[in-house]
């Protein structure tokens, strides 16, 4: 649970900031998805955009948490397998 929050919360904060910056500069009506203009309702684009950013940031946080394991953690893991 602790790890989960470590991944989800910082990524949530950063995703919020990125969302504001990205959509200030870019109009959702000017986006293209696989070569076709995005036909979605702008509110849906904003929302999906936010979750996409969150997911990307969470992937980064997850990597951080993953690499934070000490050599002891890793060795310990192997011994008991």
């Amino acid at each position, binding site marked *: 649970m*602790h790890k989960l*929050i470590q991944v989800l*919360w910082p990524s949530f904060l950063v995703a919020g900031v990125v969302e504001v910056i990205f959509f*200030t500069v870019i109009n959702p009506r000017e986006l293209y998805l696989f070569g076709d203009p995005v036909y979605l309702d*702008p*509110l849906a684009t904003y929302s999906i955009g936010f979750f996409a950013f969150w997911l990307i940031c969470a992937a980064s946080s997850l990597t951080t948490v993953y690499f934070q394991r000490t050599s002891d953690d890793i060795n310990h893991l192997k011994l008991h397998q």
Partner: protein
Amino acid sequence: MNSPAPKSQAAVSPPQEQDTLYAVRQKVYMRAVSGIFATWRWALVWITQIIFYGLPWLMWNDRQAVLLHLTERKFYIFGWVFWPQDVFFLAILLIISAYGLFFFTAIAGRLWCGYACPQTVYTEIFMWIEQKIEGDRNKRMKLDKAPMGPRKIAIKAAKYGAWGAVALWTGFTFVAYFSPLEELLKSASTLAFGPWELFWILFYGGFTYLFAGVMREQVCKYMCPYARFQAVMFDPDTLVITYDESRGEPRGARKKGVDPKAVSKGDCVDCGICVQVCPTGIDIRQGLQYECIGCAACIDACDQVMDKMEYPRGLIRYSTENAIKKGWGSKEILVHVFRPRTLIYATVLVIISLAFVWGLATRDPLRVDVMRDRMSLAREVEGGMIENVYRLQVMNMTERPRTFVFEATGLEGVRIANNQPIEVGAASTQSVNMQVLVPYDAGKPGANEVFFVVYPEDEPGLKLREKTTFLFPR
């Protein structure tokens, strides 16, 4: 509460550990408190929430006064309409907010956290509901220890229901800032919200419930980025909530009205009420801790105890590190509010705020973007003229339709073909193609500077000059 004396430290913390999101946590049963700082805190709850819940209902120019209309990509704020191009103002506003925070923190610590932060405000509201439904601190602790039964279920259900209602209303209000309230109300009457609107109402409402009802002090302790770095803005002259150790120690119980010197003790009667009222569950007597959100609940609580003991107030009070060390009075503390750090913050704050107001006051109600047509560079046309084609995007930022007049200048004999004024609707954008003609001998081959001059028919003084390039064939 009548005689605080016999209570000892053992009564302070209920050992009920919860393994929650961040760390092993002892549930904080905050004791209600009244006093001058509690009144201030409630005043700010009222002010901020009247603004937050009320603003979407306010009308201006026959529209919602404050609407950050995401679908239209326009921010309506009272008399202004902001476009994405105005992001500059948003940036300045953020800088002003940051400097304001630095300024207030340097003077009096975590004023924001203690009084105005939404986390504090909603926790206050949720705890008030809890207190009304479940009763005071002792009743709540008893209820939580009691086995599950019909009465406990009914009380808990009532509390969660009331929290849920407040949370939903908060979520609804939040969405009303981004999506017109009128349409939301229509959807609410049939419960047919747009999927994303409904989602964000539940999302924001859900987080309000989670943060203010369940997580509370953990948000401040583990999740808040500001709490982690606010200490760098503190210096020895910053007002913080301080326990006067030299006056209070050695602490200990004694009978009401006993002179501390007679029992060779300090003024602290060790009643533990300062700990019981603390929303983050710390003991302020251990000194300044990063968990302290500066809510001053312990000051109010301790003052009441001091009154009962007939001791002077202020054993716990707003003071500074230097004041405690050097025994300063309030006059010296006040003098030290004016120090280089606060003066620099204040100066920067004033300058940026003035720049913001100036920028807003002199903001052009018209904006034009000129783009060259990429398809045709330069073309020879009849009468020995060279033609370049442009696409002009005209933004009328006023809330009434306006007719705009176009001129071209910068080269000898330059003119716009089929030049006609164009009407642009209230707070909207219009794109228009323009062919600009220049005699073939009026410029050098390659790029030449030309200007579009645009002004509203009813206000010719507002002339906007936009530079662009005119190409001659080589």
